[in-house]
C-alpha cells in the first residue's frame, strides 16, 4: 500500500493529498456516519483520518493509492471509537463466547445474492444501525462503498471467507430485523383500542 521515500507518481504531496480530500471525503463521511450514527462525530473522524494520513506523509512515506489507505485509517478510528464507548454489543458477546465465524466454506456470492434479493434496501438503510458493527461494517463496505472482497479483506485483516460469512450473516440478521419491524407494526395496527 505504501512505502517510505518512494517517488511521487505525479504532482506534489500537497496537491495529491488535497485531491484525495476532494475525491474521498464524502464517501468516508458517509461510511463513518452509517457506522457510528453520529453526524458530528463522523466529521471529526474524517478530519482525524486526513490529519493522520498527512502526518504519515510528513514522516517520509508516499501513498500510491489513497482510497484503501484512508479507509484503513478511518476503520481503525471507528474501532477505537467503539472501544471508547465500551458498548455491550453483540460484538462483545461474540468475543466472549468465542463464536467461530469462518466455518461456512460453502457460502458463495450466489447465496449472498439470493439472500439480498429478499431484502428491501430502503428499509435496510433505516435499520442498518441496529446491526452489530462487525456486520454493519462489511455491509456498508460492500453495498455502500462498493469495495470488493479482497479490498475488504485487507482493510479488516480477515480472510475473504470470513468476510463472506459476515456479509451473509449481516444480511440475514438485517432481514430478521426488518421482518420483526413489520410484524410489530402489524400487531400495533390490529390491536384493539
Amino acid at each position, binding site marked *: 500500500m505504501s512505502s517510505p*521515500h518512494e517517488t511521487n507518481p505525479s504532482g506534489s504531496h500537497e496537491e495529491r493529498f488535497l485531491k484525495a480530500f476532494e475525491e474521498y471525503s464524502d464517501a468516508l463521511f458517509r461510511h463513518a456516519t452509517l457506522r457510528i450514527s453520529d453526524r458530528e462525530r463522523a*466529521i471529526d473522524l474524517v478530519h482525524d483520518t486526513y490529519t493522520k494520513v498527512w502526518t504519515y506523509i510528513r514522516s*517520509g512515506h508516499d501513498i500510491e493509492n489513497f482510497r484503501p489507505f484512508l479507509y484503513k485509517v478511518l476503520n481503525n478510528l471507528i474501532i477505537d471509537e467503539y472501544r471508547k464507548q465500551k458498548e455491550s454489543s453483540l460484538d462483545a458477546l461474540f468475543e466472549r463466547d468465542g463464536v467461530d465465524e469462518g466455518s461456512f466454506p460453502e457460502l458463495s456470492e450466489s447465496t449472498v445474492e439470493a439472500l439480498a434479493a429478499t431484502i*428491501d*434496501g430502503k428499509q435496510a*438503510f433505516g435499520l442498518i444501525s441496529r446491526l452489530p458493527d462487525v456486520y454493519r461494517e462489511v455491509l456498508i463496505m460492500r453495498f*455502500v462503498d*462498493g469495495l470488493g472482497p479482497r479490498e475488504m479483506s485487507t482493510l479488516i485483516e480477515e480472510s475473504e471467507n470470513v468476510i463472506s460469512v459476515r456479509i451473509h450473516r449481516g444480511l440475514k440478521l438485517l432481514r430478521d430485523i426488518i421482518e420483526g419491524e413489520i410484524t410489530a407494526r402489524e400487531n400495533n395496527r390490529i390491536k384493539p383500542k
Partner: protein
Amino acid sequence: MKRFSEQLKKKSDSVILSVSEKRALEARIVSFMEYHPLPVTLKRSTVKRMVTEPGIFVALSSRYVKAFAGAFALILIVGVPALAENTVPGDILYPVKVQVTEEIRSSLNRGSYEKVVWETTRLERRLSEARQLAEAGLLTPEVEAGVVKAVQTHKDAAEQQIASLRTTDAEGATLAQMTFAAVLDVQSAVLKANDTASTTEGMSMVALTQMLDAGRGKVGTADNLDVLTIDRLKAQLEIETTRSYELLKNISPVATEKEQKDIERRLGDVSHKMEKALAESNQNPVAAKENLITAWSDVQKLISFMTDIDVRASLAIETLVPVVLTDAERRNILDQTYALITSNLARITTGLEGITDEGITEKINLTLPLISELLVNASSTLETDLSGAETAIAEANALTESILGLSDFPSSSEVIVAEPAASTTLSLPEAVATSTVSEAATTTKTEVIE
C-alpha cells in the same frame, strides 16, 4: 441483490457533507497542513539532485551537521515566513512574503472560487502596505509603481479566475464576482477617506482609487446575476455569515465593545434580510434575490471591516454598512418624533395668543390644519404603510419646525402639554384635531411656509 444494493446505495448517497460542513472540514485540514508543513527534504524530493563538483572537503561531525541543518531548516520553514508576514515593499524579507508564503498559499487553493478569494485578499494586502508606506512618507515613485503593478496583477488574476470559473460553475463565478466587487468598493472607499490629493502620497492613492473604480465598473455589471439561484445564494450566505461570526469572535480582544456591538447588529440585519428574502422567495423571487444580493455585499464588507485594521481605522461602519432599522425601531422613532411634534404644537398654541403680526398668525392658522391632516394620515397608515407614515410624520415635523422659526414661542418647560398629546403613541392630538382639516386641504405647504 442488484435491487437491494441499488436501493441501499441510493439512500446512502443522501448522507453527504453539506457545502458548509465540507468547507469547514477542508479549512481545518488545510490549517493542520499549514501548521505541520512537509519537511524540506520531502519538498525537495521531486527536485533533481545537484551533482557536486570535487573541492575542498572539511570533515565535520555528522551530529553537528544534523543539528545545524535542523536548526537552519526550522528557521527557514517557520521563522522566516513569520518574520516576513509584516513586511512592506522595500524590506529585505518582503519577496519571501509575496513570492514564497503567498505563492504556497495560492497553491493550496485548488478551486477557482478559493483562488479568487485569495487573489482578492492579496490585493487588499498590497493596498494596506501602500497605505502604511504613505502614512510613513516612504512611498517613493519606484515603490509606488511596484504597488500599482502588484494591485493590477492581483486584480487581473482574480478576473481571470472568475472567467475560468464561469466555464465550470457560473453561479460560483457570479458569487466570486460579487465578493470581488464588494472588496473593491471597500478599498476604494478607504482610499477616498484617506484622500490627500495635495501631497505626493495622495497622488498615488488617487491613481490606485481610479484603478479600483475602473475594476469595480468592470465586475459590477449584473449581466450574470440571472444564473444565480436563490438556493445557492442562501447556502453560500450561510457559510459567509458563519465565518463572519467566527471572525467577530476572533477580533473581540482587539475591537472595542462598541465596534463589536455595531458589527453584531449589522450581522443581525443580514440575517433579517435573509429571512425576509426566503419568506418572499415564492411570491416575489426577484425581490428575494435582490435582498440576498444586498445581504451578500453587506457580509463581504463586514468581513473586510473585521479583517482589515486600516478599514476599521479609516471608515465608520455606518458608512460601509448602514443599519437597517426593524419595523419596531421605526415605529419607536415615529413615536418619539410624534411626541416632539405634539410638544411643539403645544408651544405654538400657547405662543399664538401673544403674536401680534397678523401675517404670521394667518400662516400659522393655515399650517396647523395641514399638520393635523399629516398626523391623521400617519395614524391611519401606521399599520399598513410604515414608509408612508414616516413620510407624513417627517413632513409634519418639518412644518412644525418651520412655524417655530417664524416667531419666539415659549419653551417646552413653560408649556403644559395636554394629556393626550403627552402620550408617546402615535394618535391624533386634541389640540390639532379641533382645527378644520377641510381648510388645510385647500392650502399647499409651500404657500404656508412662504
